[in-house]
């Protein structure tokens, strides 16, 4: 293996936490030399940038049924230590399924520019 290829491998063979994010690569020539891919969050970059409307959970009124968590296509809604549901805004694409499906209507879609 040539030297630049070895360096590429050193970068990618780290644990998930140490591995560089997708957006830290300058161009495709820095990618690993053979067509094998390793799991990483944000394989498409910060998909939160796609969002026009931001879902906001009204935690005081929420009955914690978990329906938003079940229907979220991205899996960005997670329970935190207090048992409340939290949305990872770095990756939430803002589709609005959670707000439509919430049985108590406690999720509101707010325009990003107004936040």
């Amino acid at each position, binding site marked *: 293996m040539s030297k630049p290829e070895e360096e590429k491998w050193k970068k990618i063979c780290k644990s998930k936490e140490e591995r560089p994010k997708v957006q830290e690569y300058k161009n495709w020539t820095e990618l690993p030399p053979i067509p094998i891919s390793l799991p990483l969050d944000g394989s498409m970059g910060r998909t939160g940038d796609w969002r026009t409307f931001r879902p906001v959970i009204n935690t005081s009124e929420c009955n914690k049924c978990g329906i938003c968590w*079940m229907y979220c296509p991205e899996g960005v809604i997670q329970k935190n230590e207090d048992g409340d549901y939290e949305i990872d805004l770095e990756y939430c*694409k803002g589709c609005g399924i959670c707000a439509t499906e919430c049985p108590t209507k406690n999720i509101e879609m707010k325009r990003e520019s107004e936040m």
Partner: protein
Amino acid sequence: MDLKEEEFIYPGTRACAGCGMALIYRIALKALGPKTILTVPASCLTVLHGMQGFCSTKLSVLHTPFATTGASASGIVASLDDKGLSDEICVVAFAGDGGTTDIGIQSLSGAAERGTNFIYACYDNEAYMNTGVQRSGSTPLGAFSTTTPMGKDGHKKNMPKILEAHGIPYVATACASYPLDLYEKFQKAREIKGPKYIHILAPCPPGWGYEPKDTIKIGRLAVETGFWPLYEIENGRMTLSRPSKKYSDEQKRKPIKEYLETQKRFKSLDNNTVQNYEQYINDLWSEVNQRLEREQE
């Protein structure tokens, strides 16, 4: 809720906002668990995984050419058999409707005929969506696609029926709007030996022409109008799934127009086509009801 908390896909995938397929994939992987090998042909799912170098799935995924999904699954099962791991590890082929009904049907048919111990899951978004909405064998009557600008001529291919004719032990249909039903079906399929086939309706916001927030609503309408019956066929015996049970009665079904009106791809439908749809749904359900009656005797 009995869904597993553990996630097998990392957030930040390349799927569109509100993608029905991404939801199906997430729920299916929860049901299948960590001891799973996936094989994926060219489809929206390949796009979901991201660029080369990174992958959004925590499990082993093999990306294969379009026509070889069934064959590659057979190959993986054969190598697992050789190592004595085939009881532990589940092989799952995850393909789109184009890769199942059109291009991949011969290798799928071959794998089903050989009795390969694997699950074939087809997420059906009713056209070739990742290349820009071209018509597939699964596109429904009158639906717009870039290759059928005036609406498709015929009805969609009944793929579960074709697979059932292979005499495989488990065939099921599911829908993205009923994740618990989908979860149960994948868990059941994992326990059965032999080829298993699950056909899942996946609403697609850009291809079908609706707001991303309505994905669940539209999938639910497809079941409530009777357009997409949910059932399981185990060893030749059919059972209706819970969400679809009450729609075997014609009076309880919603009018098909409600489903068609929500999507831009059905914009050019005339009254004749709507009547054709009503006839199609009635025929579909009378066949299902007759079969259920016959099997009860």
